[in-house]
């Protein structure tokens, strides 16, 4: 599997369970349904069960 890095141009912040995350680095596609997002609170795994997933992966 090759890893793909996506830089989100339009989305700088997102929220999971009421916690706000600020994107601070690249988004790494780690599988067909999962991405790693570098944020101010660490690297967060976002998967396709989350609404924010599509926005993040579409940049």
């Amino acid at each position, binding site marked *: 599997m090759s890893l793909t890095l996506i830089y989100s141009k339009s989305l700088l912040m997102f929220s*999971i369970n009421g916690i706000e995350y600020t994107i601070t680095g690249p988004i790494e596609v780690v599988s*067909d349904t*999962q991405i790693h997002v570098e944020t101010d*609170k*660490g*690297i967060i*795994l*976002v998967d396709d069960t989350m609404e924010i997933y599509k926005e993040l992966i579409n940049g």
Partner: protein
Amino acid sequence: MANGWWGDWRPSLPAHTGDLQPTDLIECTSMSGGVPTNTAITGQQIIDAASGGGSNNPKLLGFSGILGTNTTGTTITICHSLLIPANTLGTNNILQLIFRMYRVSGAVGQLYGRIYFNTTNSLTGATLFNTNFTMNNGHQTGYVERNFSYNGTNLTSYSNAAFSDYTTGNIVNVAFNRSVDNYVIFTMQCQNIADVANINLFKVFAYV
């Protein structure tokens, strides 16, 4: 005092119920020069002696010696996880994580082990300890260890992809809120769909 035994009254006492408590008192009579002396041993003294002479560390939080959940396809999969209950860690503690990556079948591609933390037993929204542990296609197992110092805010350890942290290098922090339940999550991922990976051993210790 029948038969010269000064403690003949004791058999009339009811048996102790429940677990030994630190505050329990166990009456003890010692003889010196034919003179009995009564003292009390505390439950804490017995607990300390039984646990190695006064220290309860390291405290084993959990372990497994069997395979967890196999990977599916190339998805990052939770193989094993462990709940670290709220307030287990203090502001000056150590968390030690050990796990062994295991190739169940296939020899096509690399296998990747990772450690996440989350307040639920799920990868959704989990925080990655930013290191990938990689096994090449000729490898069947890989034993990984990380020691995290904890200051009440961050878990701090060695960030390099080396399997152990008995070396020098950069550090990485993972935010950890000790006042809530946290899960430590051990995952595996296959580079190639023809392989299956798992974890067949994990141990989690806390020095508290």
